[in-house]
């Protein structure tokens, strides 16, 4: 699904990642961990094409990311659901429209998807907040809305960058359960987090592999977490 081969990323002379190789198989569940600033977000950005690798080869759905033109990249992103660290909403539109935004930009019929949208909002527990603007939402509500937006196109891959960064333990458990449910539905899940207790909590519910970035390299962490 996502194949990363000897990928390096450097910017302005500094090297952030080097010789990173990993393959995310369809239906797999991965955590990506490492200290702050180690390059977790960068690696995720490489996976959805917000950044391009400066070395090595990275392919998603069998497509070499560096060979895609702008329109192909847009089409590819519709197949990857991303929960950004800062959620990334359009503050002038109500929550329901923000969640449905990927449908809008891919010019799908909204009428046909209306039921889907209602179900999805119910799944993340935000039915009553559909008309609220993003700035009016709490941290947990924002994260759940971001997750709903990430999956509305029913993508094959869900990538989440610190989805539990700004929420309390109960809320992070709730988000984790949603992500695990998605994985059970067959989605490939990749979550960046520095929260080891979240990883431990997940391990009891799902077969998750843990990737750790340390000294610019990616290692498969052992079972000792």
């Amino acid at each position, binding site marked *: 699904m996502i194949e990363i081969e000897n990928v390096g990323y450097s910017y302005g002379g500094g090297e952030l990642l080097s010789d990173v190789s990993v393959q995310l198989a369809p239906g797999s569940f991965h955590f990506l961990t490492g200290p702050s600033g180690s390059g977790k977000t960068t690696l995720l950005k490489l996976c*959805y094409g917000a950044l391009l690798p400066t070395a090595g080869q990275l392919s998603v759905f069998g497509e070499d990311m560096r060979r895609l033109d702008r*329109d192909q990249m*847009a089409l590819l992103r519709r197949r990857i659901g991303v929960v950004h660290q800062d959620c*990334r*909403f*359009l503050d002038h539109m109500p929550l329901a429209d923000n969640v449905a935004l990927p449908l*809008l*930009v891919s010019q799908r019929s909204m009428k046909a998807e209306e039921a889907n949208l209602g179900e999805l909002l119910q799944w993340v527990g935000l039915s009553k907040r559909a008309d609220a603007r993003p700035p009016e939402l709490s941290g947990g509500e924002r994260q759940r809305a971001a997750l709903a937006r990430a999956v509305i196109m029913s993508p094959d891959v869900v990538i989440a960058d610190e989805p539990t960064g700004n929420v309390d333990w109960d809320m992070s458990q709730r988000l984790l359960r949603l992500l695990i449910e998605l994985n059970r539905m067959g989605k490939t899940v990749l979550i960046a987090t520095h929260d080891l207790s979240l990883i431990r909590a997940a391990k009891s519910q799902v077969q998750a592999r843990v990737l750790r970035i340390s000294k610019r390299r990616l290692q498969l962490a052992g079972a000792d977490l």
Partner: protein
Amino acid sequence: MSTGTIRNLLRGDKRADRVVPPSGFTAQLTLFVSGAMAFLAVFALALSLASGRLADRWASELARAATLRINAPTDQLAGQTQAALTVLRQTPGVASARALTTEEQVALLTPWFGPDLPIDALPVPQLIEIIEGEPGYDAAGLRLRLSAEAPGAVLDDHTRWREPLVDAASSLRRLALISILLIGGATAAMITLAANAALSANAQVIEVLRLIGARDQFIAGAFVRRFTFRALIGAAIGVMLGMAGVLLLPDASEAGGFLTGLGFQGTGWVLPLLIPPLGAAVAFAATWSAARRTLKELA
């Protein structure tokens, strides 16, 4: 860019337009500026058409006519007139030559001397009207022959005072055309500035749209539609006001001279109607290229 792409960009999509936050005040500015530019364009167009008409009229009316003036003592006047007419009739390129009658000469002089002029008592020169044929005559040769046959004849072929007038009208037309081009360029520059401002004010929105899989065409379309329609509506209002202003100008009249001939005539009235679509086209191109530049900097 294909016509299909242009049609897609312009096709109204209420929901898609909402992804760009409403801009309020700056929208009014774009409307105002494109309206003002269209208003000015109407007048520049009117000036250009009127000065064109003027130049053509002066050039054709005066080019075909010349006057021969015979200054001679009263006893020789008739003889010299006859001699001059004979010379003129034999000159190739002269279509017709006719001595003005006394009544016609009186009519010409009336504005200066009043109706009671005893023209017989005055040594008024005899005038001969010459209408030039196609091709024209050789003025220098004619002057030489006339000086032998009718020494009192002075040929005035109007070119001397026609040229500066036609030149002036032509330069006026040129200036008006340059003004129209400048107005078009200024509109493009203004729309580009406004579009750039809107694009950078909405950089976050554009980034989010790109991240969730929006194609460049979708994002650019939201901006292009906005500015194209604003320019179209603004220009339509400007043209309407401009045309009303031209309508209210006094009609062409002898007393007003060339200044009163400034309006549109006949099919000329159709030309200003082209300004709004042209303004919209300029806005479309300016916004499209501004959006492309901005989007290229994003992943």
